[in-house]
C-alpha cells in the first residue's frame, strides 16, 4: 500500500479537533503531542536521582563496615592512643560506632552530622592530623596521574580501534590480540617488570615515589621535571595495560556500525572516506564507548591502588593500603568515602557528556 493521507472524515465519525498529520506523528491514533527540548532534563534528572541514591548507599555501607568488625578491635585501637583530644575522641566514637549507649539510628544521625560538617575523624597513622587534611594532600597525585593516563589511554584506544575497524582485514588486525594480551597481564606484574627492566637494569627511571627524596612540592621547573620523570613509568604502564580494552570495544562497535545501510549511502553519495570514517561511523560507534568508560571508572580506581603500591606513589590508594595495614580505621573509612565520591562525580560527568552526544536522549515524544 502506498503511503496514504486520507482526508479527515466528515459526517459519520467526528475525530478529535487537533489538526494532526498522521505521517508525522507516525500513528493515526489521536492526541499525541511532541515535546522539544535541547537539554535532556528527564534523562539527567533520572540519573541524578540514581547517583544520590548510590551516594546514600555508599555512606551507609561506610557506616556499617566498622560496626561489623569485632568490637574489641576498635576499643583497643582507641586505648592504644591516649593522647587524642576529647573532641577528636568523640568524633572517632561517632564514626566508628563505639557509642554503645546510643541506638543504632541515633548513631546513624550522628554519623551524618559529622560528615556534613566535614569531620572524618583524625588519622592515627599520620600524627593525629584530620583525615580530611591527609586525604586532600594525596588526592591530587592520584587524580593527576590516573586521570591523565586514563584519558590518554581512552583517546588512543578509541582512535586506534576506529582505524583498525575501518581497515578490517589488513595487518592492523594483529593489534587486537596484542593489546588484549597486554590487558590480561596482571597490572601489578607489568608494573614490577617495568621497574625491573627500566629502573633497576637500564636506570632510565627512578624506582618509585612521585618526586625525589628531600624535595618538597613547589611550582618550580625542576620540581615539575621531577614529577614527570617519576610519573612516566606508572603512567605508561597504566596506558599500556588499559589500551586493549578500549581498542577492542571500539573496533567491535565499528564493525557493527560499518555494516549499516547509512554508511553505504554515505559512500555511494561520494563522501570522502575520511569523513565517512570519522563523522559517520566513529561518531556513532563511540557512544557505547562512553557508556563503558563511565562504568569502568570504578575498576580504574582499583587499578590505581595497585599502581600506587608497586610504585610507592603517594596517592589515596597507598593511603588506603597503609591505613589497612596499620588498622587506622578512621582513615580507611575516610578514603573509601572519598574514592566512592570521586567515582560518582566522574560518572556524572560521563553521563552529562553522553546525554549531549546522543540525540536519542532528547526525545520526549511517543
Amino acid at each position: 500500500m502506498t503511503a496514504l493521507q486520507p482526508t479527515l472524515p466528515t459526517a459519520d465519525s467526528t475525530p478529535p479537533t487537533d489538526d494532526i498529520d498522521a505521517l508525522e506523528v507516525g500513528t493515526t491514533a489521536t492526541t499525541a503531542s511532541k515535546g522539544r527540548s535541547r537539554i535532556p532534563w528527564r534523562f539527567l534528572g533520572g540519573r541524578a536521582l540514581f547517583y544520590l541514591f548510590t551516594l546514600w548507599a555508599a555512606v551507609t555501607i561506610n557506616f556499617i563496615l566498622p560496626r561489623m568488625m569485632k568490637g574489641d578491635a576498635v576499643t583497643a585501637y582507641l586505648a592504644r592512643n591516649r593522647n587524642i583530644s576529647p573532641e577528636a575522641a568523640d568524633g572517632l566514637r561517632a564514626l566508628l560506632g563505639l557509642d554503645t549507649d546510643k541506638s543504632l539510628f541515633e548513631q546513624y544521625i550522628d554519623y551524618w552530622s559529622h560528615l556534613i560538617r566535614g569531620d572524618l575523624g583524625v588519622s592515627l597513622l599520620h600524627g593525629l592530623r584530620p583525615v580530611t587534611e591527609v586525604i586532600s594532600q594525596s588526592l591530587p597525585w592520584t587524580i593527576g596521574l590516573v586521570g591523565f593516563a586514563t584519558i590518554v589511554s581512552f583517546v588512543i584506544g578509541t582512535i586506534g580501534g576506529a582505524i583498525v575497524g575501518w581497515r578490517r582485514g589488513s595487518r592492523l588486525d594483529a593489534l587486537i590480540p596484542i593489546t588484549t594480551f597486554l590487558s590480561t597481564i596482571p597490572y601489578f606484574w607489568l608494573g614490577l617488570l617495568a621497574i625491573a627492566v627500566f629502573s633497576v637494569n637500564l636506570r632510565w627511571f627512578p624506582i618509585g615515589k612521585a618526586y625525589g627524596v628531600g624535595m618538597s612540592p613547589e611550582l618550580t621547573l625542576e620540581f615539575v621535571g621531577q614529577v614527570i620523570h617519576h610519573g612516566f613509568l606508572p603512567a605508561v604502564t597504566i596506558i599500556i595495560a588499559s589500551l586493549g580494552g578500549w581498542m577492542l570495544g571500539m573496533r567491535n562497535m565499528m564493525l557493527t556500525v560499518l555494516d549499516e545501510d547509512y554508511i553505504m549511502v554515505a559512500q555511494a553519495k561520494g563522501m570522502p572516506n575520511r569523513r565517512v570514517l570519522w563523522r559517520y561511523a566513529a561518531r556513532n560507534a563511540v557512544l557505547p564507548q562512553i557508556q563503558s568508560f563511565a562504568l569502568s571508572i570504578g575498576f580504574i580506581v582499583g587499578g590505581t591502588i595497585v599502581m600506587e603500591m608497586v610504585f610507592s606513589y603517594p596517592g589515596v590508594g597507598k593511603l588506603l593500603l597503609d591505613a589497612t595495614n596499620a588498622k587506622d580505621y578512621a582513615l580507611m573509612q575516610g578514603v573509601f568515602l572519598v574514592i566512592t565520591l570521586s567515582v560518582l562525580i566522574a560518572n556524572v560527568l560521563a553521563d552529562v557528556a553522553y546525554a549531549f552526544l546522543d540525540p536519542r536522549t532528547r526525545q520526549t515524544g511517543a
Partner: protein
Amino acid sequence: MSLLEFDSVTKVYSVRGAGQIKALDDVSFTLESGQTIGLVGQSGSGKSTIAKILTQLETPSSGEVRLDGSAIPRRGRGLRSYRQQLRMVFQDPFASLNPYHSVRHHVERPLRLDHVVPAVQLDGEVRRLLGRVRLPESVADRRPHELSGGQRQRVAIARALASRPKFLVADEPVSMLDVSIRLGVLNLLAELQRDEGLGVLYITHDLATARHFSNEIIVLNQGRIVESGTADDVILRPTHPYTQELRAASPDPEKFFASASGSGTVSAPATAAVSGTEGGTR
C-alpha cells in the same frame, strides 16, 4: 456455534512525555464461528491493538469482550479456558517461533498445556497437525532457521490449531511472505476455516486479499470503525471517503500499462482485484 463479541472497546495508552494516545475508540463487532471478518486499515490504525486485546495481552480501558455471552475472566481457570478457544497467528514468521526450539516443541507445547490428547498420543497428534498444514513429518525435528518463510508460517498455523480453538486471529499472516506463496497460505487458512468451522479475524492492510478471504469487512481508521458490511459491499460500493481512498490507492496493473502506453501521463489507477465482477474468486 460460538459468538465472540467485541463491545464498545476503547483503549488509551499513556506515554511518558506525550500525554495520552487513544488507540481504539468505541470499537464494536461480532464474530461468529464459521465466519471470516476482514479487518482493514493502514499502519497505526489500531488493528494490532484489537488483536492484543483479543488474546488478553492487553486489557481494554473501557468496554468488554465477551465469549458466548460471558465476559472474559482476567485470570485463573476461566482465562486458561478462554485462551484455549482463541489463538493467534503472528505477522513475522521468523520472530514468532523460538529460534532455539524445534518445530515439534512449538506444536507440542499447546497440546501439553491444554491437555488436548493423552501423552501417548502426542506424537501422532503432532504428525496429524503438520499434515493438516501440508508439511511433512520430517519437518518436526528441524529448527525455524532451517525452514522457509512459508513453512514457518504453516508451523505457526499448526501451533495455533493445536488446542482446537473456535476462533483464530490472523494478524497480517502473509504480509512478510513472498507474493508468490501468499495465495497458498491464504487458501490453506480458508480450507482450515471451512473444515474446522473456525471464526477467523483476518487483519490486513491489503484490500484484495481481504475481499478474497472474508465474508464481512470492517474498515478501521484512527482507532474507529468507519465502515463495515459484506465484503463485496464494502469493496465495490464503498460509502465512506476513507474506504474510497483506500480502494483508489490499490494498484491495477492493466489500467496502469494501458494508460502508460497510450498517453504520456499516468492516470490514477483503480483496483483491478477489488473491482470487476462480483463474487470474486472465492
